[in-house]
């Protein structure tokens, strides 16, 4: 198995000037994505997960400034690239799938035109060849009558079908990495399962790296190999899905997992866990742990300075907290 990472990110920061000072929505974020594997970036709204993905693609709003220690795609440094060179990588070697497929497809062009254009923007292929690939990919993403679909406009498709078109479009140039930002949030649960199934299958088949940005812990647990939990601009815990869901170490991760009712584990009608308080303002600098104000275990040590990562339960598991690892699995395995 090729263990070489397809994407390496180290100390990624985003700063946005606002009237009250400087907003730091992404702080010291670092992770690696391996070919054929899925990394989930999970967190609540405002944690910086979407801006992280936009920063990777260099699609931040104009006022926002991006800095990073390292940002490399398949060994190639992306930091020094000009906008023109970056534009050639976007949609070609790195593609993105957005939450709302209706707004990311152009309503004025047919599905076929957009798929063909997605490839011909980056490759010198003939229209016929691109069209053939589009048909092949539409069949791959499970659309019946792919030849007919090419002539349809986005509004003639249902939400689930549009998302399939978006996935096909993301695959047109055979990218090394796909970033999917809440790809199933706008869809019904039944369609969600189908789309996720499809993403997992295709990603395995095409050996791409996949970054899944989501707030849905169920999706994360079922689909992803590795999970990075973000809170208030920082990654607070990172590990394999099993480590995160079985032996969560950071108080935020544990709190988040207690908030969702789990059939068979949570007693029906019982009170669910809550995380009191609100997300801190990310304007200006915050020396200590960002979660300290909401954390039941917070002490003076949490607020004095930057919190370093500690090693967690197994290889590759780390969390940003002063506490040592909680004893025993926080979430026992379900009764057989």
């Amino acid at each position, binding site marked *: 198995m090729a263990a070489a990472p397809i994407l390496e990110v180290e100390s990624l920061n985003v700063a946005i000037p606002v009237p009250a000072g400087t907003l730091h929505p992404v702080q010291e974020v670092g992770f690696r994505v391996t070919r054929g594997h899925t990394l989930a970036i999970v967190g*609540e*709204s405002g944690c910086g997960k979407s801006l992280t993905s936009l920063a990777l693609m260099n699609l931040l709003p104009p006022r926002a400034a991006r800095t990073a220690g390292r940002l490399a795609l398949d060994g190639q440094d992306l930091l020094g690239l000009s906008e023109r060179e970056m534009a050639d990588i976007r949609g070609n070697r790195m593609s993105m799938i957005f939450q709302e497929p209706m707004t990311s497809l152009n309503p004025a062009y047919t599905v076929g035109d957009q798929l063909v254009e997605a490839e011909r923007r980056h490759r010198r292929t003939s229209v016929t060849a691109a069209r053939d690939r589009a048909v092949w990919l539409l069949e791959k993403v*499970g*659309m*019946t009558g792919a030849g007919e679909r090419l002539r349809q406009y986005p509004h003639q498709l*249902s939400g*689930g*079908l549009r998302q399939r078109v978006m996935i096909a479009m993301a695959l047109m140039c055979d990218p090394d990495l796909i970033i999917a930002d809440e790809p199933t949030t706008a869809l*019904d*649960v*039944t*369609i*969600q*399962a*189908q789309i*996720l*199934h499809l993403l*997992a299958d295709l990603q395995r088949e095409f050996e791409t790296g996949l970054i899944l940005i989501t*707030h*849905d*812990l*169920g*999706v*994360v*647990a*079922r*689909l992803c190999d590795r999970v990075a939990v973000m809170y208030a601009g920082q990654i607070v815990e990172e590990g*394999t*899905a*099993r480590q*995160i*869901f*079985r032996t969560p170490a950071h108080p935020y991760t544990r*709190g*988040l*997992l*207690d*908030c*969702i*009712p*789990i*059939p068979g584990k*949570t007693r*029906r*009608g019982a*009170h*669910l*866990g*809550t*995380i009191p308080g*609100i997300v801190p303002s990310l304007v200006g600098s915050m020396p200590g742990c960002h979660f300290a104000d909401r954390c039941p275990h917070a002490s003076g040590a949490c607020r004095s300075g930057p919190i370093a990562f500690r090693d967690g339960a197994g290889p590759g598991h780390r969390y940003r907290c002063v506490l040592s690892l909680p004893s025993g699995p926080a979430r026992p395995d*379900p009764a057989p």
Partner: protein
Amino acid sequence: MSGAALIEAREVSCTFTVSGGFMKEKRRLQAVSRVSLRIEPGEVMALVGESGCGKTTLAKMMMGLIAPSEGTIEIGGRPLASLPRMEIARSVQPIFQDPYSSLNPRRSVGSIVTQPLRVQKDPDPETWRRRAEEMMEFVGLPQRLFNHYPGQLSGGQRQRVAIARALVNRPRMVICDEPTSALDVSVQSQILNLMQDLRSELGLTYLLISHNLAAVEHMASRVAVMYLGRIVEEAKTGRLFDSPCHPYSEALLGSVLTPDPTLGIPDTQLGTSYPNPLDVPPGCSFHPRCAKAMPGCSVRAPRRVPAPGGGAVACHLHDEGAALDTVS
């Protein structure tokens, strides 16, 4: 059938006319078709189904916001159509999905929470502020927010304002249309806890509309599954989640993603698309997507029959009189 239901829908249908486009024939969209639903006092009745299945239309009819094209709705044994607007408003109140659009941005929190008292021309204006503040405290909103505007509040706080507004007149029934799906996970649990507390303390009855099936299983006492405007299965929560009878319920429950890393993505066995509600398949409207469809399913619409284990189901698989040659 015992005593008086708090609210009961009898064979209600709702049909909209949809313009087919310029110079085209108008088409009829049957959003809800012949639905009967009975909600007893103190219950938490959940309505689940994919978007476009008619759950919201049914809820709007139960609040008197849309008149049913056929059938009747009764509140406490009296037909809703004959009740004055104000009286319906006193018994049934909604909580909406999106707390960003359900609060008028130009009104202060205090004005929003006292609005029901003003509209109902409550006889003691001098008590309005005190009662609104009590209700705000009850739903966990600090009183200092009384003069704030929705724009200054977080999503969770806004949803609490919406709940306070719904409850200040002490309705008996609250219709919650996706009350947590626009909120963050950590806020969702707070709102669900609050709804549980309010129910036991104020003796409320809920109609909970949600696609978050984990939340439904946690909150509801009974569940009705809707598909294309019809209720296809209705049962106590435990029974429905343990052993769903209708193939659609089974597929729907099977697609719930519990956060368990040892399980993969379920295969729902449903065809790709939800049918166009303007063009409802004949017979059982679910048959084109059904993994257990039989030849008769595309011809005859199923009857509503008692389901094994309690509740009711509308499926030929469970209708002995209709289909004895079932392949399991």
